[in-house]
């Protein structure tokens, strides 16, 4: 176990009837870190966040936050953990300030300091003008920011955000992300956020975990994940050509390093045993192709994401009758990623 870890999850499992939503998840998150839990819808991200806040009881395993057991000590855990659910809701007929006041009362905060604190938080989240409006009149971005203020009210050590960037416009997103960054770097809070929006996660997270069908496939910084993929597989190139001139396909057929080619209209995705970008370019130009763009896909989070999931699916199909093997394989991979 990592001594610096503030959140440590061991073999956390949750089953809903036959379906396993979270399957033996083990994860350590360090103090002051922004950790992104990445995965498609239904991967078990929300279930994990609910178990961490003690809102749902796990079927097995344990989770600790700052040394407190998330299930048995859930009240004390909730005192140091701020949870921002996806689609956060407020009482529409109360004003933003009244909603915050209610949260403060639930936390048993003394009334005198609450008002100052609320003013400060409304200012920080850019809502000081709207604090006395009814929440029913708020836009989605404002609600989300009120949610952040609501979470910060109890001065949490750990903040868990479930899909915080969902449905917010780009400007609102930028503000939110810089706020998240600031919360971690300036205030020293630990932030766990779950999302399927890769680009935002890439911007703000120190480390990410790939989460599919309840299992953590990989975990590490984005660079580490890319390197790990590169080590056990090929280089991916995407090349786009003008179809009216030249014949790229014959060029591709002649290059022995190419392992496979995928085609999407004029875009070819090529995987090769080594980086053949330059050779490919000169060969293509020599045969008269007009190249519109070419790029490496390996360091792009989206590509990493795609390939992890692809691999997971392949292995799932291949070893459908041998589940034990798959899960062992994944555990090894997850452990390997953590070691790095």
């Amino acid at each position: 176990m990592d001594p610096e870890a503030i959140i440590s999850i061991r073999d956390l499992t949750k089953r809903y009837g036959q379906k396993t939503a979270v399957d033996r998840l083990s994860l350590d998150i360090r103090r002051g870190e922004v950790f992104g839990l990445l995965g498609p819808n239904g991967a078990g991200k929300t279930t994990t966040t609910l178990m961490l806040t003690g809102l749902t009881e796990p079927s097995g395993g344990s989770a600790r936050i700052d040394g407190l057991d998330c299930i048995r000590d859930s009240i004390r855990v909730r005192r140091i953990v701020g949870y921002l659910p996806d689609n956060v809701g407020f009482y529409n007929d109360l004003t933003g300030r009244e909603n915050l006041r209610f949260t403060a009362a639930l936390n048993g905060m003394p009334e005198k300091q609450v008002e100052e604190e609320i003013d400060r938080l409304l200012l920080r989240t850019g809502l000081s003008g709207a604090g006395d409006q009814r929440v029913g009149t708020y836009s989605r971005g404002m609600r989300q920011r009120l949610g952040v203020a609501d979470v910060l009210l109890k001065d949490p050590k750990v903040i868990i955000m479930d899909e915080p960037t969902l449905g917010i416009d780009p400007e609102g997103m930028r503000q939110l992300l810089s706020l998240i960054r600031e919360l971690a770097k300036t205030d020293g809070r630990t932030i766990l956020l779950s999302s399927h929006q890769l680009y935002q996660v890439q911007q703000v997270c120190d480390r990410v975990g790939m989460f599919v069908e309840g299992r953590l496939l990989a975990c590490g910084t984005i660079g580490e994940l890319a390197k790990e993929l590169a080590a056990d597989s090929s280089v991916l190139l995407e090349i786009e050509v003008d179809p009216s001139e030249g014949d790229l396909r014959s060029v591709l057929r002649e290059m022995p390093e190419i392992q496979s080619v995928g085609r999407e209209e004029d875009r070819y995705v090529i995987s090769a045993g080594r980086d053949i970008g330059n050779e490919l370019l000169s060969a293509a130009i020599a045969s008269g192709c007009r190249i519109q763009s070419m790029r490496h896909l390996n360091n792009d989070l989206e590509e990493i994401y795609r390939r992890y999931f692809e691999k997971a699916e392949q292995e799932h199909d291949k070893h459908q009758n041998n589940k034990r093997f798959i899960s062992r394989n994944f555990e090894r991979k997850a452990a390997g990623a953590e070691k790095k």
Partner: protein
Amino acid sequence: MKEKLPELKKSNRREEIRERNTGLAALYRKEMRDHIRSSRFLLILVLIVITSFASLYGALSNLSSAGSSSEFLFLSLFTTSGSAIPSFVSFIALLGPFVGLVLGFDAINSERSSGTLNRLLSQPIYRDSVINGKFLAGAVLIFIMVYAMGALFGAVGLLIIGIPPSAEEVGRIIVFLFLTAVYICFWLGLSILFSVLCRHAATSALAVIACWLLFTVFISLLAGIIAALIYPTDGGFAGLFNMADNYTLNLYLNRISPYYLYGEAVTTIMNPGVRSVGLVMASQLEGAVAGYLPFSQSLLLIWPQFTGLCAMTLLTFTISYLKFMRQEVRSNG
């Protein structure tokens, strides 16, 4: 170290109680404020005030035309119906359920659908504080409302007839109001139960209204039909033998309904002349001296009805409590 341990435990315990109460108190205050501010509640309150004054008017016109022969004139203000207007008691029996409905039908499911339940439960409060706070706030409001209504009604009645009530009458009215409050709390419990079970507020409101219809109208019809099926009273001589059984079964089936229980209890407590609930044989009445039942005996007579009402209220609340504690909090499925 050893001596300090019990003390430590004690202070831990005290802190735990304080923790438990912080959430409950905050929720209670919020619910209370919401109810009092809500236009729904005001609407039903206005409705009840209007109907009760209509019934007072009816009772007064009837009492003055009949001449004041009754010994318990003040009580008959509550129980006498006018020519076209039902009495205060029957109005409350009919409309009371709606107060419970209005206070409770969207207690849990509106929090769930607006996404506030998740946020609420992620605060450092015990989960049951939510449902306890809601029930407690509703129940306290019901008690305040019922006693305020009773006092208002009595005061206006007193001003008009000018005959002060005796201590016994006051006692009977207090018990009547208590019964009424418990009866309405049953409907509150039922509404909260449906608000836990149903996902949409409209569904739970309809479900409560369906129960209200069943308990006030249909159960007496059903009871009659079932009793007639099992103990047919037509068919000559055999039918005569079945009459007592038929009546008893009919009564027992009716008593499933809190409306009927409440009606029986209120009739007994508000009319000292009522000496028995249920079937009385002519042989049992032989040698009985006609007279009024003392307060304590009336109370004794309605004790089963009273405990029945309390038990039903507790039962609905307990089921909703258990259901709520076991429900998953996931907002979307």
